[in-house]
């Protein structure tokens, strides 16, 4: 059993390790997945910055083209020379600008602003189209454009973010002079956001502080984590924000997102303008979820080492079975064979040395039990001899133990069943006893040919019928004397063949005279047994003179009381039978009745 236990321990340990691995392995995989997602997010963030830069370049080129339009140059040249701008001039310039805008291919600007060289707005298109005359010089973008630079910027106007670009308007005819500037603005919209992330498998949102500006998806995020992350961004190179910034964990409704925040440049930066790229966090992959995503191909022979797993399983199984056979099955089989031989009587005891370990202990325990039972059987016979006394020669019967073993009897009653050894066992030192309890009728068959007179054959076994109502209240109605003892006796009956009438030998049978005055009351059951005994005795040709009922009943009463005191039984049944050609009487303690 030692190696079997070791093997069981190894198998259990291997199983536990496998379980731990199965439960733990998804976590590193999850971390790797999250890290990859974050890296992908950072890359996508950088791509967004590149796309926005490209977009700015196209917008600046578009603004330059707009500013080079001859009608625009002429209109602003005239406006720059005027001391005061009027509405008529504004409308004329606006109409000119609208025509130019209509000719723009692709994405249309959301506003245009035409500025004279003094920095005054001559006309606006689309946004605040009726406003004019205000000075926009002072805004860095406009100042640069009036100075001759082309550039882009980000403006916030009325809660909307605009990508703006400006270009100077130059009169190219001699003398070449600056006559104003043009500013075009493109609003940051949801459509623009969706276009930016098209194909990137991420989402983007544009924010001005805690205000949502636009996004590829309408998701209500917590702004505080993003604002905090925005506040931590330092340095003048905004293009490094995507790599320098740590990913954020954002929660929106019931979903969690990973996000990276990057600053937006330009004037809008003073109003905490930023954009955030985000992706939904991958589902936490546990053991169950890992199994759930296993594909059929994962279990193919090409992808899974079935031979290794199967071989390992068979090897473990074979080793386990082998160890069990060597350490358990084979010794058990050997012990079983030994026990069967013991039961058959081929052996008197189990061979203790032939069995090792626990099985040797079992054999030793069985041998000890055998020895104990033998000693108790001898003791029981001795007790009965002391109880009933030796059977005198020529008495009415002889004391005899039945062939069944006599288990130890406690005053409170024997333990049910367990005290009776299996029928296969033979007790070599317990004397000539039969294996099974001898039924009452079996005792009627003489062990050797009984000297029965042909003229008067022994009558068939007679059962003393218990009286319908027992004279003594506590005495239960006994079973028929000759009837087989059946189920009502729960505990193994203690059957005794005993010459309980030895003292009455030679007594004159004196029938009971119902009319004669008696000292003691006649027990109907004892009387019935008495009559049967006398009848059997006569049938065996024995003398019945001197056998009186009173002596007979006294003897039975004493015998019954002794047995009840000795065995703790509740009742004693008496059976008349023939033994060695003579009438004999057997007292059987009746234990519990069902």
């Amino acid at each position, binding site marked *: 059993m030692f190696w079997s236990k070791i093997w069981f321990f190894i198998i259990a340990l291997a199983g536990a390790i496998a379980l731990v691995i199965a439960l733990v392995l998804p976590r590193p995989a999850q971390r790797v997945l999250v890290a990859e997602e974050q890296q992908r997010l950072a890359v996508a963030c950088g791509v967004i*910055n590149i796309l*926005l*830069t490209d*977009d*700015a*370049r196209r917008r*600046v080129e578009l603004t*330059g083209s707009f500013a080079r339009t001859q009608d625009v140059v002429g209109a602003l040249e005239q406006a720059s020379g005027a001391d005061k701008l009027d509405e008529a001039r504004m409308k004329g310039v606006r109409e000119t600008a609208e025509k130019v805008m209509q000719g723009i291919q692709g994405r249309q600007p959301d506003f245009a602003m035409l500025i004279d060289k003094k*920095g*005054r*707005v001559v006309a606006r298109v689309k946004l605040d189209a009726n*406003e004019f005359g*205000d*000075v*926009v*010089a*002072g*805004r*860095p*973008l*406009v100042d*640069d454009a*009036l*100075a*001759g*630079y*082309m*550039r*882009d*910027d*980000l403006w916030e106007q009325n809660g909307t973010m605009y*990508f*703006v*670009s400006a*270009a*100077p308007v*130059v009169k*190219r005819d001699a003398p*070449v*002079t*600056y006559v104003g500037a043009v500013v075009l603005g493109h609003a940051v919209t949801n459509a623009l956001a969706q276009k930016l992330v098209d194909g990137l498998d991420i989402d983007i949102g544009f924010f001005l502080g805690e205000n949502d500006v636009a996004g590829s998806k309408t998701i209500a995020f917590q702004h505080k984590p993003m604002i905090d992350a925005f506040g931590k961004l330092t340095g003048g190179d905004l293009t490094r924000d995507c790599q320098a910034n740590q990913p954020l964990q954002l929660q929106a409704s019931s979903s969690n997102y990973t996000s990276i925040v990057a600053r937006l*440049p*330009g*004037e809008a*930066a*003073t109003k905490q303008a930023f954009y955030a790229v985000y992706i939904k966090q991958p589902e936490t992959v546990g053991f169950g979820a890992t199994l759930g995503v296993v594909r059929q191909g994962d279990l193919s022979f090409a992808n899974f080492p079935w031979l290794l797993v199967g071989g390992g399983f068979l090897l473990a199984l074979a080793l386990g079975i082998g160890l069990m056979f060597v350490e358990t099955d084979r010794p058990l089989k050997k012990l079983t064979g030994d026990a069967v031989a013991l039961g058959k009587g081929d052996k008197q005891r189990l061979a203790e040395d032939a069995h090792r370990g626990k099985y040797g202990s079992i054999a030793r325990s069985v041998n000890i039990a055998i020895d104990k039972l033998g000693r108790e059987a001898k003791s029981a016979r001795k007790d009965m001899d002391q109880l009933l006394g030796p059977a005198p020669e020529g008495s009415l019967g002889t004391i005899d133990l039945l062939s069944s073993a006599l288990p130890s009897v406690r005053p409170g009653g024997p333990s049910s069943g367990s005290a009776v050894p299996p029928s296969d066992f033979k007790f070599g030192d317990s004397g000539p006893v039969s294996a099974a309890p001898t039924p009452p009728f079996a005792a009627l068959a003489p062990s050797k040919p009984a000297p029965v007179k042909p003229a008067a054959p022994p009558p068939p076994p007679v059962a003393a019928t218990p009286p319908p109502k027992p004279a003594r209240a506590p005495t239960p109605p006994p079973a028929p004397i000759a009837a087989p003892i059946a189920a009502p006796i729960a505990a193994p009956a203690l059957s005794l063949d005993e010459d309980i009438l030895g003292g009455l030998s030679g007594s004159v049978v004196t029938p009971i005279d119902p009319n004669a005055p008696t000292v003691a009351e006649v027990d109907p059951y004892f009387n019935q047994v008495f009559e049967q005994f006398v009848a059997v005795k006569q049938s065996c040709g024995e003398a019945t003179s001197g056998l009186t009922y009173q002596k007979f009943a006294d003897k039975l009463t004493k015998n019954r009381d002794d047995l009840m005191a000795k065995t703790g039984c509740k009742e004693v049944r008496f059976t008349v039978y023939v033994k060695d050609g003579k009438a004999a009487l057997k007292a059987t303690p009746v234990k519990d009745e069902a």
Partner: protein
Amino acid sequence: MRVLSAVLVFGLGVTAAHAGSLVGKLELPAPPDRPPVATRGFLDRVENPLTKINPVNVAPYLVVVAEAEAPAPESSIQVSWELVGDSFGKPLLAVPAGAEVVIKNVTKTARSLVAVEDPKLIPGGPINPGGPKSFRTKEAKAYTITASDAPHIKAKLLVVTTPYVANIDDNGKFEIPELPGGTYKLRIYYFNPLSSKDGWLDRPDDAVVIPAKGKGEVTAKIPTGYPLKK
């Protein structure tokens, strides 16, 4: 071309019969180079291919101040200052101490202005379109006026101890009228629009004698690079 781009004359009980005027010209050196753009977009700015870049016009950022030997009494006059859009009409305004400054917002956008050096100088709250907001100057010092909702709006309010101040035109010329006769010290204040630094120019102060009647003339030379006194 206008001779005077701006002239502020503040009544101090001086009558024209006892006053002259000061005319002069500042010899302006080459304007400073434009620094890198402060609010860069996604791209660096690029020069247009058609002509060279316009130089910075520093004239609006210079103020001439004539200080008498005896300090002038505190003024109680009113000076108007227009917010014309994303900038003030005069990016640098000099006023005598005690004068009331009335800022008029001629744009259609409300602005909340504040003096950086003294947040309580300008009463709180936005200046609605068309609406004025006035305050009185006390201490002689320079104040940076900006808008909290439009940081690019930036101007200088210079409070001095004399009422005789003047802005210059694009050619550097200026005139201070109604100047009582006497000797004055000419000082020039400069507000660099590119670096936002400001201060008195680091140069020898010119002594100017103004006759009781007539004009006094002066030509002042501005050092190269517009250096400021430390």
